[in-house]
């Protein structure tokens, strides 16, 4: 009898938990696909923003990636020709991950860097991912990236960005060497 007394309040709680779990499973089934799709669309838009002639992109072998690179590969035009390379990196800045897409040309020189997402301190850390500051990396090769100055007041954010871009370009060079 003692055992039952303990279980009595637990039963309604379990029932409620089950109902909530069911509601959630339903919502999840409705939204899961869309969520994954959103990230893909975002990436696609970012790559197309850097390479206007991009028709598609292909991932390279993930064993070639640097530690912080989540995806990288070739950017192809409508004829299937390689017009550049991309790398999806997310270095950890001041307040979490800074999602970036780095686009390089066929010689692993940076074409441009697009911002996917970041939640740095507005007005301060966000300077590190401003268009003008990201453009500073344009045309640089792997060895020249460290030469870009960090931004006063956004040291951690801009250092993270710089390091991330370096990893990205490094990965591109590795992919380049491997060939298609």
């Amino acid at each position, binding site marked *: 009898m003692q055992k039952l007394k303990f279980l009595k309040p637990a039963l309604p709680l379990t029932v409620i938990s089950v109902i909530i779990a069911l509601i959630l499973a339903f919502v999840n089934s409705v939204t899961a696909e869309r969520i994954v799709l959103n990230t893909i669309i975002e990436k696609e838009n970012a790559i197309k923003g850097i390479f206007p002639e991009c028709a598609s992109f292909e991932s390279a072998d993930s064993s070639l990636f640097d530690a912080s690179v989540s995806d990288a590969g070739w950017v192809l035009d409508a004829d299937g020709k390689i017009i550049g390379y991309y790398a999806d990196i997310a270095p950890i800045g001041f307040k979490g991950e800074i999602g970036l897409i780095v686009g390089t040309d066929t010689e692993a020189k940076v074409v441009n860097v697009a911002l996917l997402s970041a939640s740095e301190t507005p*007005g301060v850390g966000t300077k590190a991912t401003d268009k003008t500051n990201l453009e500073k990396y344009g045309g640089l090769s792997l060895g020249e990236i460290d030469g870009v100055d960090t931004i006063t007041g956004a040291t951690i954010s801009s250092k993270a960005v710089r390091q991330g871009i370096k990893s990205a370009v490094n990965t591109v060079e590795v992919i380049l060497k491997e060939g298609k």
Partner: protein
Amino acid sequence: MSKETKKIITDGLFDKNPILVQLLGTCATLAVTTSVSNGVAMGLSTTAVLVCSNLFISLLRNFIPKEVRIASYIVVISGFVTAVELLIKAFLPEINKSLGVFIPLIVVNCIILSRAESFASKNKPALAVLDGLSMGAGFTLALVVVSAIREVLGSGTLMGYKVTPESFEPSLMFVMSAGAFFTLALVIAGMNKILSVIKKRAEKKEVE
């Protein structure tokens, strides 16, 4: 409209405004009020969770045993927060980016737990929903006021549109942490002043 329903509405919006009077939900208020659109988004998301959780808990109020009520509330609230989180991630990814970790943190927004305990568990579902809507509206209103001040003074914009003249140099401080504290202090002080003036007038009327 019955007196009871009127009171529920005025309580939530004004007399017992969750942030400005009850002083709950301060974490979210300070963190997301960097712009009016963020404030509105947070306010509406919280209202959605509040209404759902109030409704659910009110429907089950005779079913939930006293001993496990807090645990039950937490399960219900966190369930609805996760549901709202998934819906936002799927259909409103921009808002997901700007509100970030504060969407799941709606779970620990004291407003929701407090309404569950003090109202939803003791009232009929219809009233509980009304309370949820009015408290949520009051919360959103307060968020809008604070974020309007911070956005205009801090970035010179309102809902993303530039509203200040060229000569006005926005004070970045308002968008940063210190500004959050100051602005909220000002708005609550303002609220206190308004409430005390109303109280004094009511007392004067009684004397006459």
